[in-house]
């Protein structure tokens, strides 16, 4: 089915097209959100909002990028908005109840490690975070990242290098503290 026909079906609210849209893209959207917010429940909620957003605004989709790229952009924006709106709550999470993060059965050291990872990713500057998430979590090529972000390929290379360096430095700092 051509892209134009599919978009037309979405604009008409065709149920089969809606189901296909979710099934084809849900995992990538979810992984993007999870990479940002580092919490499964919040990531799932934001994923739902991404698709609702798309349904409401599909009439405005101009077709300059692929539908998947557009979805990822919306996922990033909604995740950033979530982090901004929940800054206070998330700060408290850092300090207190680890059990709020996830309902998995990890032991304490694993939970500490997860918190270190979350904090390290949070700490990345926005552009570095965006590029790191798209490359590492979604395995997008530099060209695809350029399509999502409108950054040049050389900027992406530079941002990725700096993101990795900063992440490792943050995680090293954490592990040195834990093991000292």
């Amino acid at each position, binding site marked *: 089915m051509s892209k134009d026909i599919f978009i037309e079906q979405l604009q008409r609210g065709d149920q089969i097209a809606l189901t296909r849209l979710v099934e084809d893209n849900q995992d990538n959207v979810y992984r993007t959100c999870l990479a940002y917010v580092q919490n499964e429940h919040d990531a799932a909620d934001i994923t739902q909002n991404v698709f609702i957003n798309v349904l409401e605004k599909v009439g405005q989709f101009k077709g300059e990028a692929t539908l998947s790229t557009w979805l990822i952009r919306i996922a990033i924006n909604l995740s950033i908005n979530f982090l901004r709106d929940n800054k206070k709550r998330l700060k408290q999470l850092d300090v207190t109840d680890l059990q709020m993060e996830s309902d998995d059965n990890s032991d304490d050291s694993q939970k500490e490690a997860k918190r270190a990872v979350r904090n390290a990713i949070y700490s990345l500057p926005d552009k570095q975070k965006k590029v790191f998430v798209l490359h*590492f979590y979604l395995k997008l090529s530099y060209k695809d990242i350029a399509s999502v972000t409108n950054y040049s390929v050389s900027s992406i290379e530079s941002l990725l290098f700096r993101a990795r360096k900063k992440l490792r430095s943050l995680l090293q700092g954490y*592990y040195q503290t834990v093991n000292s």
Partner: protein
Amino acid sequence: MNENKLIMDCKELKIWVDRVNEDELLLGNANVQTHINECESCSLYYKGLLDSYSIMKTQRESSLSKQMSAQIINKLQEVNSTHRVDTRKTLFVLSRIAAVLVVSIGMLTGGLIGEVINKEKEDDSAAWQTEFSLLADDGESDLYLFD
């Protein structure tokens, strides 16, 4: 690499770690393994990084549960139905407004046409009166009568 010993030193390990991407980090390296077997500090540092990237890799491979997926599809269908109802309501209201506008414009137009016609009649009448008054004011006609 320290060629005499053929194993990394701590600085070389750090350089290697900074250079490789995350998947290579997770894959490991024989020279790295040799070094961290002998160096406790690097072992802790390297293990910490591996743990962190393993956590991220697990997240990278995670999927939305089937339950959540079904929930999203249901929610979209619900939003879609509401959106269609709203659109029909909006169209209905717009059509009523359009009908009222058509009638109003019709009445206004009819009124205006009527006004124009009446104005023309008044103008004619005014013209007759003006002529008549002019004639009436002209004393000459009376003089001729008594001449």
